[in-house]
């Protein structure tokens, strides 16, 4: 190619651009292959609407968490607190509902108020994280590891360590396990979150600042971006989404699931990175993250269906994680650098 008129590089640039957009291509192929293999092996059990639906539903909560995590990781941060904030928010939501009306089936107003309280609780934790990261300059890993403990401990104190199961059945039966037009509520919520988040990251100023901060915080500050405020917003978003996930979790399991969620953070991070977002910040996609959630989920379900001992699932998920990222790296390296 010559350095001639700008039209030639423009064409090439577009091609390249498109190729870069396909960072997630390989991981997507892995996902397809897994689905194909399991479908072939057990068409009766795996390739069924029931199973696809249940994978989609069981993954919805993690998708919501991982979307928030994507933004945080693009700023080159990390949020280990998502699982605890999820539980804390669920506790706040159900406590609010029970406080307003302790009957097993309170009105919609009470349920909405409880949901809002859960979201608010998540948002506040996010802001708390953001302030420590952005203003006090404590490394995100430390802040959110601290919040992990604090939020979980407080959730246990609020409940004396006993799961609250008194979840309004209207909530459990609608958002928790119900459907709209045949599509489970949880899936609907997750799809909405993904769509909005993808637009925000790719097309808006918010998304661009997120990348800029992750790319070079110093540079972003020097052009006048309020890096601290932006970081607070990003952590607040992750907190808010964890709060949402908490309300969904409460609805879905009809319980505050106090002792679960310890692995949620690592699962969310794995999904984000599996989806092609760089842990060094600056680069990432929301769609990639979604694929990154589904790969382990499909493996998990497929193995259970094939009745492979559950331990092998653990092994396989680990191996696929490494291999998928490896091939993705290979492909990218071949495409550009060195």
């Amino acid at each position: 190619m010559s350095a001639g008129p700008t039209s030639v590089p423009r064409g090439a640039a577009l091609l390249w651009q498109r190729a870069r957009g396909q960072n997630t291509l390989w991981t997507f192929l892995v996902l397809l292959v897994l689905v194909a293999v399991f479908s072939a092996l057990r068409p009766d059990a795996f390739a069924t609407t029931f199973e696809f639906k249940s994978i989609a539903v069981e993954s919805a909560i993690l998708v919501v968490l991982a979307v928030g995590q994507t933004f945080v990781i693009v700023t080159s941060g990390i949020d280990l607190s998502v699982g605890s904030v999820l539980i804390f928010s669920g506790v706040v939501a159900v406590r609010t509902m029970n406080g307003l009306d302790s009957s097993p089936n309170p009105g919609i107003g009470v349920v909405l108020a409880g949901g809002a309280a859960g979201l608010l609780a998540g948002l506040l934790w996010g802001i708390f994280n953001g302030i420590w990261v952005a203003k006090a300059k404590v490394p995100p890993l430390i802040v959110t590891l601290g919040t992990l403990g604090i939020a979980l401990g407080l959730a246990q104190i609020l409940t004396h360590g006993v799961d609250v199961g008194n979840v309004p059945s209207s909530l459990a039966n609608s958002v928790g396990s119900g459907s709209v037009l045949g599509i489970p509520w949880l899936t609907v919520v997750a799809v909405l979150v993904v769509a909005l988040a993808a637009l925000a990251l790719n097309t808006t100023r918010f998304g661009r600042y997120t990348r800029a901060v992750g790319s070079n915080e110093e540079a972003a500050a020097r052009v006048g971006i309020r890096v601290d405020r932006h970081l607070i917003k990003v952590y607040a978003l992750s907190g808010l989404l964890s709060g949402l996930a908490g309300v969904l979790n409460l609805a879905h399991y009809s319980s505050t699931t106090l002792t679960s969620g310890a692995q949620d953070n690592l699962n969310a991070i794995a999904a984000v990175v599996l989806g092609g977002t760089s842990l060094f910040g600056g680069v990432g996609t929301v769609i990639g993250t979604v694929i990154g959630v589904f790969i382990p989920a499909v493996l998990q379900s497929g193995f259970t269906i094939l009745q492979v001992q559950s331990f092998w699932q653990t092994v396989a998920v680990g191996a696929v994680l490494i291999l998928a990222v490896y091939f993705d790296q290979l492909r990218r390296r071949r495409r550009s650098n060195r």
Partner: protein
Amino acid sequence: MAEPLLDARGLWKTYGQVEALRGAGFTVYPGEVVALIGDNGAGKSTLVKTLVGAVSPDEGEILLDGRPVTFAGPRDAQRLGIETVYQDLALAADLDAAANLFLGRERVRPGLLGAFGVLDKRGMREHSVAAFAELGVELKDIDAPVATLSGGQRQSVAIARSVAWASRVVFMDEPTAALGVLQRGRVLDLIRRVRDRGVSTVLISHNMPEVLAVADRVEVLRLGRRVARFRAADTTLDELVAAMTGALATEDEEEA
């Protein structure tokens, strides 16, 4: 001479055990090109950073149009029309050249989309291509992250950005250090054009012929202090070098 546009006095800045600025002063008049020269480690970059709000001095005052100002950050300085090309460039390596040019000042789409902060990517890209062409820089791939550009290409991105937004002063910390002969000429032309627009330029450079060719005045920093000022027309290369190395001291800064 006219009233100074920017006047700094008695600036001190200490890093751990190192005193980078020891009562430094600096003056910029409206519509002039002033060169800031000095040995390596003299404190030039530190001085510039304090003048544009990127670093806060331990002591000293900065007057803008005769009134004291304090900058909480670069944003404050930018709002007053002061832009900077940093020695370490400070670009967002993962973003492309256009995104860097508009960073912090993105154009949004008209209407509702704009209210949601949706960017006018196309408009910004077109504007950028033109801005780079003016500097004689050809980017083979306008969508490539700046991390993949050559040293000179990156420097041009930083220069184009500062010039695009400055309305009063542009600080350029060794802007031509990595530039080719052609591009260096373009930047010097650009500095002159910017001055003709009424915007002052502060040029840091170790290239004395370049300094003498483009600057109206020269201020010399040595060991964290201003030690001399010259009218470019009245001085010589040897005199500048003597001032930098301490062989000649025309003035010694007032103690802070």
